[in-house]
């Protein structure tokens, strides 16, 4: 006979404020199999856990139910407590009466009734629980970082510092990411390249770090500690082992019509190119779509001028498979497409630009050599208007609901730099709210207003009208003065919202890492596990998880690295014993489970099966417990009921349903 203990947590007023916890405990005492029940203020505290441990020992409990918060929060806590009391940790069930009950209901009576029902279901289930033992698996002592921006570089450097091997896979020809495109950085105004390029060099020369640039992750299989990743090394058409990076090929290349990605399409680059002068590796790639040799067969200039014989038109994509213990996503961001915001005339005027384009214009290595000028006629702008929140904090489906977080600061920075370098240029900023929390951030913004006389207008711009004279008529409203504002500007800068890199969804799907509606990767816990994905062994670094600036990104990169180091320093990992298994006698070999399994954990074998004394050869499903994540998809899909999940067996689920419906 099972001997069950039920522990009802108040969670301060979180639960007790809405639910009559004493009544839940009292009702629990009447349930079949329950020999002990008690409520307590904080069950997760030291005292609460001791209460559980003592009760297990004193009442010789065979299973316990904790009515508390979500199992994602404290299931492990209570399992560990049970283990300390000598109880198998899988004899613990959580009835979530916080997130799924007290937090979402207002009526005390109804909420209490529901809490009792949830408690009953958990009791019914725990009566059927069986002790499970976690298996063990090894750990491959190598980490993969996807994305070679500041987030990826910093994560890799920190992992390497602990002595572990780490590979960076970067899609573009060079590491550096968005930060390499920036001119100056807030709030100290140090030059972005001056602080980034040394880190890029460090990453390239670190013997623990391998760079796979111009490469993409194609396939990921395996599980925490034992990932297997297929990486496509795209053909550079230039041999990295021979190239000296002299740059003659780029100079002589006759095809110079491809828009430069690095300069946001503001100027053109050659077909054979490195994105920027400080690129790492300093080995160019041939963009085959724009290369005359690849398109027409004639040309071959780069090959003729290359002293090192490094040009290789025959080079093909190379696939490699590498094993990793942990994977860090650092895929970064891009600015949104502005097609739906044409009231700002971005598609109509060359002088309406995004803030990132302005970074390139302000940069000494940019398309204008660092001179602030209009792209339409090369004239110096005397009147510049910045528009903030273009696509951020948007109430309709045109833009993003969230605040992009970095725009207030970089707009203040750009406005200040322009006023400093070109004091005869007027600068106006339209804003909804100024959000500058952060060390020395608000002081920085105040400097822009008070010391540099940047005009800040609270209000939004309704329209930018590019006139035939070349002026951009900015029509907006000043909601503090309650007046209509019309500014004939020479240049308009849009602080466009940022969004995750367009490949984020594809990569998250490959990693079975969860992702939100905005394509940001989701963290395991918003407060307590911010750099881990809910999928074990997957970690998050930088803007792929949410908008953040450079200091925050670097901090997060270090944090993700610490988590990776913690994982890689273990030799064995406990695996989840809640895995699926198939009843050979009931399996009809239909392959339905194999098709629904997202982890590739199910295969088929032809086996001799003893069916009631008759030996038959049958094709049956076999689950690889090391790969199975216990999602349960196969148990639902199996038409003959052969698949079952340890810890969540069909019998247990039905018992729960019965208890709910009682």
């Amino acid at each position, binding site marked *: 006979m099972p001997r069950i203990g039920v522990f009802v947590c108040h969670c301060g007023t979180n639960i007790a404020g809405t639910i009559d916890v004493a009544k839940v405990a009292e009702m629990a005492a009447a349930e079949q199999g329950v020999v002990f029940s008690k409520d307590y203020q904080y069950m997760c505290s030291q005292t609460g856990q001791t209460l559980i441990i003592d009760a297990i020992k004193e009442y010789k409990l065979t299973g316990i139910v904790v009515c508390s918060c979500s199992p994602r929060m404290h299931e492990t806590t209570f399992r560990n407590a049970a283990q300390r009391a000598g109880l198998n940790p899988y004899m613990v069930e959580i009835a979530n009466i916080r997130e799924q009950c007290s937090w979402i209901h207002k009526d005390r009576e109804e909420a209490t009734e529901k809490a009792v029902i949830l408690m009953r279901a958990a009791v019914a289930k725990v009566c059927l629980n069986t002790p499970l033992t976690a298996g063990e698996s090894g750990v491959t002592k190598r980490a993969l970082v996807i994305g070679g921006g500041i987030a990826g570089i910093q994560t890799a450097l920190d992992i390497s510092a602990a002595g572990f091997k780490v590979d960076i896979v970067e899609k573009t020809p060079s590491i550096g990411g968005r930060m390499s495109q920036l001119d100056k950085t807030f709030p100290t105004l140090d030059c972005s390249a001056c602080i980034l390029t040394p880190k890029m060099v460090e990453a390239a020369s670190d013997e623990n770090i391998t760079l796979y640039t111009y490469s993409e992750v194609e396939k990921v299989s395996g599980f925490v500690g034992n990932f297997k990743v297929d990486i496509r090394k795209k053909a550079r058409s230039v041999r990295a082992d021979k190239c000296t990076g002299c740059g003659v090929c780029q100079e002589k290349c006759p095809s110079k019509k491809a828009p430069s990605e690095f300069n946001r399409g503001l100027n053109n680059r050659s077909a054979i190119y490195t994105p920027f002068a400080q690129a790492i590796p300093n080995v160019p790639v041939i963009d085959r779509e724009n290369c005359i040799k690849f398109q027409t067969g004639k040309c071959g200039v780069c090959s003729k001028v290359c002293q090192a014989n490094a040009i290789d038109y025959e080079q093909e994509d190379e696939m490699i498979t590498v094993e990793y213990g942990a994977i860090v996503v650092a895929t970064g961001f891009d600015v949104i497409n502005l097609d739906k915001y*044409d009231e700002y005339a971005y598609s*109509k005027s060359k002088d309406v630009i995004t803030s990132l384009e302005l970074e390139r214009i302000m940069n000494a290595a940019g398309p204008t050599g660092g001179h602030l000028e209009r792209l339409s006629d090369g004239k110096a702008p005397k009147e510049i208007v910045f528009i903030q929140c273009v696509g951020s904090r948007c109430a309709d489906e045109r833009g993003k609901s969230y605040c992009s977080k970095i725009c207030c600061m970089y707009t203040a920075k750009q406005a200040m730099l322009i006023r400093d370098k070109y004091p005869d240029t007027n600068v106006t900023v339209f804003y909804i709210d100024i959000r500058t929390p952060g060390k020395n951030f608000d002081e920085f913004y105040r400097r822009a207003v008070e010391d540099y006389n940047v005009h800040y207008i609270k209000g939004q711009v309704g*329209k930018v009208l590019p006139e035939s004279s070349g002026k951009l*008529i900015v029509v907006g409203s000043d909601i503090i003065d309650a007046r209509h504002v019309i500014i004939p500007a020479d240049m308009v800068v849009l602080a466009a919202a940022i969004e995750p890199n367009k490949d984020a969804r594809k990569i998250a799907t490959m990693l079975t890492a969860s992702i939100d509606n905005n394509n940001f990767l989701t963290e395991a816990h918003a407060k307590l596990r911010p750099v881990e994905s809910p999928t074990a062994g997957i970690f998050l670094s930088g803007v792929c998880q949410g908008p953040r600036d450079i200091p925050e990104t670097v901090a997060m990169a270090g944090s993700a690295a610490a988590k990776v180091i913690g994982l890689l320093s273990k030799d064995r990992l406990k695996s989840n014993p809640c895995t699926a298994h198939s009843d050979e006698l009931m399996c009809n070999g239909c392959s339905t489970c194999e098709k629904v399994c997202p982890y590739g954990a199910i295969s088929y074998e032809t086996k001799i099966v003893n069916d009631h004394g008759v030996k038959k050869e049958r094709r049956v499903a076999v689950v690889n417990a090391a790969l199975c994540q216990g999602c349960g998809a196969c148990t639902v899909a199996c038409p003959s009921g052969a698949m079952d999940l340890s810890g969540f067996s069909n019998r247990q689920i039905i018992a729960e349903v019965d208890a709910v419906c009682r």
Partner: protein
Amino acid sequence: MKYSYFPGCTLKYKAKELDICARESAKALGCELEEIEEWQCCGGVYTMQKDELATKLASVRALMEAAQKGQALVTVCSACHHVLKRVNLMMREGGPECDRINNYMNNEIPYRGEAKVIHYLEFLRDEVGFDKIKEAVEKAQTARKAKDQEDPADGTAQKVKTEPVKDVKTAPYYGCLLLRPSAQMAFDDPENPSIMEDFIEAIGGKPVYYPYRNECCGAYTSIKNKDHALRLSWEIKDSAAGFGAEKIITACPLCMYNLKQEKEIEIPVIYFTRILADALGLEI
């Protein structure tokens, strides 16, 4: 092919040209516009308040007739199109307003927005097709050239009276009513529309981009605050002229009125159906 047709009050009086050119051009393009019987004012002079139902009844009647005939309902006037399209959507969404109207009208079968309301420009693009219009215009031009050559040299024969359209720099003026609210009107990108430009190109003209093409003309403010409407209309005409436009075209009688009230800038403002008829060589 037959279509139901809702001309609207203004098209019977001040904007006759908009109406006649639309009908005759449709005929020349092989389509027949069948006027809704005993139609009444769409209610366009009233606001689109959600709780004001009486002003929407006439629209519902017209919509029901088109739906019963199984024909798409073609409109020309921007205001009529705006009202009919939005009233139809309101009926389609169901809800208490829709029920109240159906009850009041004593409809045996409740009307649920089954009609399809299309503006004449959408009719040209989606039903006739700009390609076909381009062909028809080219044919008309060839015929006209042939006729001109047949004329005796003494000039006794009357020349065709239509205005030239080919290569004329034409500025499309959209106004507000066709484009907004964009989710309901679903007419074109409200900030970067292209249907009028495509229309101008189809009939051989040269569309001129100018940023005021979807700004307000002042609408009814011209009754109470004439200077305001004049200023807005001046900005529109000034901008179009600045970008080299020789003509401005519009679909809206009220925009036409306001733009014509502004007399400082001399640039012809005409209905879009007029240049269509001209391009098709129709002497109207």
